[in-house]
């Protein structure tokens, strides 16, 4: 949940989410247009540097956020690069790393990294609430938005409930061995599951108390320079894409 914290306090917090969205999408498309490893790496660099610059993220934290994805990347790249071939019998398997597969793995990895950095640019500069407001304007089905809004808020409440209960279990040695851990975890989840209905009931009562029976209604936040920001984003994004086409 590091990302959430940075997203509220960056320098571009008040740039229109639509603009940041457009720029991120153009980043994704540029990454897919990039035909060579250096081209994709360039996209990665553009977004990584931009993010480090405007989101007030230390490069250490940035790497920490990237780490789990890099693990997946390493495993999958290995799988792509590896070639299996069978001989006459089942036991007769040979491994090799043919050069063109190595090359493909490299390209996929850099592209993937470029896309991730583009996504992180959006995630680290734009609070989820702003993104949900944007999705609402883009006519996402009401129910999905409601689930998102309620889910986002409840996330923190449940994180607290789970962490409090887990701490209480630890205080009574609940995670002392693998066997006891699994048992404690089962109790923890069951206990939290029961609170789902309770909390839903409380929220429903609170909504009724403020005359809300139907879909949740929310006021849109206004970003004064949305038009200008989006235009700049569109131009910058197109530039990036054209550069990729020329480079490819």
């Amino acid at each position: 949940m590091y990302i959430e914290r940075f997203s509220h306090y960056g320098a571009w917090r008040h740039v229109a989410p639509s603009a940041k969205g457009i720029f991120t999408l153009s980043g994704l498309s540029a990454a897919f247009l990039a035909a060579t490893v250096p081209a994709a790496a360039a996209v990665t660099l553009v977004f990584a540097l931009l993010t480090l610059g405007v989101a007030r993220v230390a490069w250490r934290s940035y790497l920490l956020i990237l780490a789990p994805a890099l693990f997946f990347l390493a495993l999958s790249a290995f799988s792509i690069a590896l070639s299996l071939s069978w001989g006459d019998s089942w036991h007769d398997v040979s491994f090799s790393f043919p050069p063109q597969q190595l090359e493909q793995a490299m390209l996929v990895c850099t592209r993937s990294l470029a896309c991730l950095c583009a996504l992180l640019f959006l995630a680290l500069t734009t609070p989820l609430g702003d993104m949900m407001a944007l999705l609402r304007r883009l006519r996402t089905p009401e129910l999905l938005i409601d689930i998102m809004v309620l889910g986002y808020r409840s996330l923190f409440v449940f994180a607290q409930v789970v962490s409090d209960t887990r701490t209480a279990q630890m205080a009574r040695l609940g995670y002392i061995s693998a066997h006891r851990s699994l048992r404690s975890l089962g109790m923890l989840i069951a206990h939290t599951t029961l609170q789902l209905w309770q909390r839903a009931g409380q929220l429903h009562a609170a909504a009724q108390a403020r005359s809300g029976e139907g879909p949740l209604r929310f006021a849109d936040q206004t970003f004064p320079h949305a038009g200008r920001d989006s235009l700049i984003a569109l131009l910058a994004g197109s530039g990036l894409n054209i550069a990729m086409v020329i480079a490819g």
Partner: protein
Amino acid sequence: MHIMEGFLPADHAIGWSLASAPVVAYGVYSLGQKVRKHPEYRMLLGVAAAFTFILSALKIPSVTGSCSHPTGTGFGALLFGPTAMAPVGLVVLLFQALLLAHGGITTLGANIFSMAIVGPFVAYSVFRLARIFRLPFGMAVFLATFSANLMTYLTTSAQLALAFPDPVGGFVASFAKFASIFALTQLPLAFIEGLLSVLIFNALKRF
């Protein structure tokens, strides 16, 4: 197991999104019907999404000593039904992409397909089947959640194999590669998730 942002080729990313869209749309439609009748259900769905997210972020102690995360969608399907899990899963996967950098936007369709569609439906049907064969409740829960986790990971392997077929062995060889490499982490995880779900349901029954 999430496929990372940008990992699938563009045509595959679009293809999987198109494959998932109707199921999500149907889920939204049928949940909408339900919410109209029971307004409280709207809150429950939101809370359930948060819960699934938190569940997927919980570390579970695995036999190999390393820590892993359960998917929780099989468990969710048993609680809320498989149709609810497609829209809820969409929200959870979106949150994971934006808050944890797990998965991504371009791979959202593929991840929804494996985790919010295949997993929940497998869990639900296996559970139903097990109950028809009069297996004990705990056994049914174990089989349902175990196979949901397993099928999710096999679907992901198939998605990766389709995108990156082995130049010599084709899809089959590639599938074997991905499936066996990810099996290292996924097999024990599926087993533990099944076990954990049994513990949870046993505890729930006694409340």
